[in-house]
């Protein structure tokens, strides 16, 4: 089964979406983007809740254009579940089911069998989402659309459900579109990720591709590559670029970059803080500088490093045990390595498109 979105466009006074082209096979596609980027509008267009101005949506070869929502076979799970408040859990789940066996199987799998006679108001956030999912799947949809299903849940439940949901959804043999603004959820849930901004898809690919080789500055920033700098190209060969950054020179991997000024980024967890005793290999882009700020975040430390040679500070993330082992609180002068293969240069197309 395949969901094919081609040239999809919609506009109202305030906002223009598209054109959007996406193909979702029997997999989970995460759609990641900030609030107002058009994620929910995209789902609504696919589900037939909104009408597109142009473009088509095909599901298993059938053109859905003009079909009302009930004839599309696309089940939509809303952020808070949108359970019918005047029905019990059982009535919600059986609402669209064609056989009792399906209901029994789904409620068993999603662990909501014990809740069947409860009213909707008494459910917790996590239970609500599982019931909503059971209800959606009871209609035997040909595609499943999920709109931030975990957004309103508390951290521990969110963490647990994220993994459970991933296992469950990846067993379904239908296209699943999972919309979220949360980088972690997008990565955990999605076989592939599409990053949206201002109504268009800026990059689509596997999580690794997007996080390690963001196509645009926006994608880099939104996926947590907070160290994003501009530098001049001194020299280029097949093997890589030589960048002049402030008063220092960096080796970076070669990309199809032609301009003389480039943007490059490095994720904060890839910046290496070098131990005092470790010999320095200057080819590893070693910078000297001082620590400007250390912030404990519970599971890790964020260290702001000010290189001597450059005005821009670099953010470094260290897991708590690593930080403790480094005893950074005893010193403020450190050396840092920006390994060549950890540096990503945003190519010209990515810069122009913004």
């Amino acid at each position, binding site marked *: 089964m395949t969901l094919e979105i081609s040239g999809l466009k919609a506009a109202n006074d305030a906002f223009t979406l598209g054109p959007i082209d996406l193909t979702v096979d029997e997999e989970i596609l995460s759609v990641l983007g900030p609030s107002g980027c058009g994620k929910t509008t995209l789902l609504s267009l696919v589900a037939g809740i909104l009408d597109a101005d142009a473009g088509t949506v095909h599901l298993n070869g059938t053109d859905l254009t003009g079909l*009302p*929502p*009930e004839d*599309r076979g696309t089940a*939509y799970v809303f952020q808070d579940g*949108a359970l019918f408040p005047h029905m019990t859990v059982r009535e919600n789940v059986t*609402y669209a089911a064609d056989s009792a066996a399906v209901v029994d199987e789904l409620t068993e799998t999603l662990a909501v069998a014990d809740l069947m006679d409860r009213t909707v108001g008494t459910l917790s956030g996590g239970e609500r989402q599982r019931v909503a999912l059971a209800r*959606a799947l*009871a209609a035997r949809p040909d595609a499943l659309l999920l709109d931030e299903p975990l957004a309103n849940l508390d951290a521990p439940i969110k963490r647990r459900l994220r993994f459970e949901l991933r296992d469950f959804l990846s067993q379904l043999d239908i296209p699943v579109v999972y919309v979220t603004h949360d980088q972690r959820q997008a990565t955990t849930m999605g076989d592939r990720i599409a990053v949206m901004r201002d109504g268009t898809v800026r990059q689509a690919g596997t999580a690794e591709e997007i996080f390690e080789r963001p196509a645009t500055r926006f994608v880099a920033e939104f996926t947590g590559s907070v160290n994003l700098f501009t530098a001049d190209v001194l020299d280029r060969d097949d093997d890589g670029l030589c960048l002049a950054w402030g008063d220092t020179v960096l080796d970076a991997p070669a990309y199809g970059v032609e301009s003389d000024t480039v943007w490059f980024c490095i994720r904060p967890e890839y910046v290496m803080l070098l131990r005092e005793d470790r010999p320095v290999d200057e080819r590893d882009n070693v910078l000297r500088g001082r620590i400007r700020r250390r912030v404990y975040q519970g599971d890790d430390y964020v260290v702001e490093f000010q290189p001597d040679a450059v005005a821009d500070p670099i953010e470094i993330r260290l897991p708590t045990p690593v930080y403790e082992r480094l005893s950074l609180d005893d010193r403020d002068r450190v050396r840092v390595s920006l390994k060549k293969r950890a540096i990503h240069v945003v190519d010209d197309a990515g810069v122009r498109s913004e």
Partner: protein
Amino acid sequence: MFQTDSTTETFESRTDWYRVGLTLGALLLLYYLVPLASLLLSQSPGAVVERLGDGYVIAATRNSLVTATASTLLSATFGLPLAYWLARTNFGGKNAILTLVLLPLVFPPIVSGMLLLQVFGPAGLGGLLSVEVTRSLVGIVLAQTFVASPFFVVTAKAAFESVDRRLEYASRSLGKDGETTFRKVTLPLAKPGIVAGLTLTFARAMGEFGATLMLAYYPRTLPVQIWQSFLTDGLDAAFPVAVVLVGVAVVSLLVINALGRNPWRGESE
């Protein structure tokens, strides 16, 4: 930041302001309350009960109940689709249509009656179709529907608007068509507001006077009978009939309250 003096001053002025406001509000409530209390207190129950059995009171009550029920059913039948459409459409001319619905609400009923008389009376459609409108229950129903049905449309529209649209979308994305969704999701959820709208409409129809007076003075409904009794025998004769009418109004409001969802009361509760 706090000095005891200024704190005290603030408290004083706040108290003054509160007191004036509460006094004004209480006076208004008193103004609503006193006439009602006077009705209940001035009538000896015996006298009321005695009159209640009179043939003309029974006839008027029957006429009122029959016509008000018919008007309410008509309002519901024609008003429900209109209310739903108004609640859900984004059509540009929506405001113009809503104004048209509100017009009978702010229209003087007596003018409404005149207009209806012209359109449906002997010189208008009624004459054309040979239906006697001016001296029949049909005329009363026409007058009541014109005056009371906007209450239903406005209230039902608010009730539909309070139904989360996403529940309807969810139902349809589960494969249920618009009609099923309306019957199984929208209508049950809007029900309290719709019942309240029916109650308001019924009460307004029961109390309709100005338009009925113009369009169909006879057969007499309760308000017309009150007027008639007042003209012939004065206030004391009119009061027992009024008690019946007030009873209906109070029962209507109690039903609205019991349903716990008064559409006039806003979402915050």
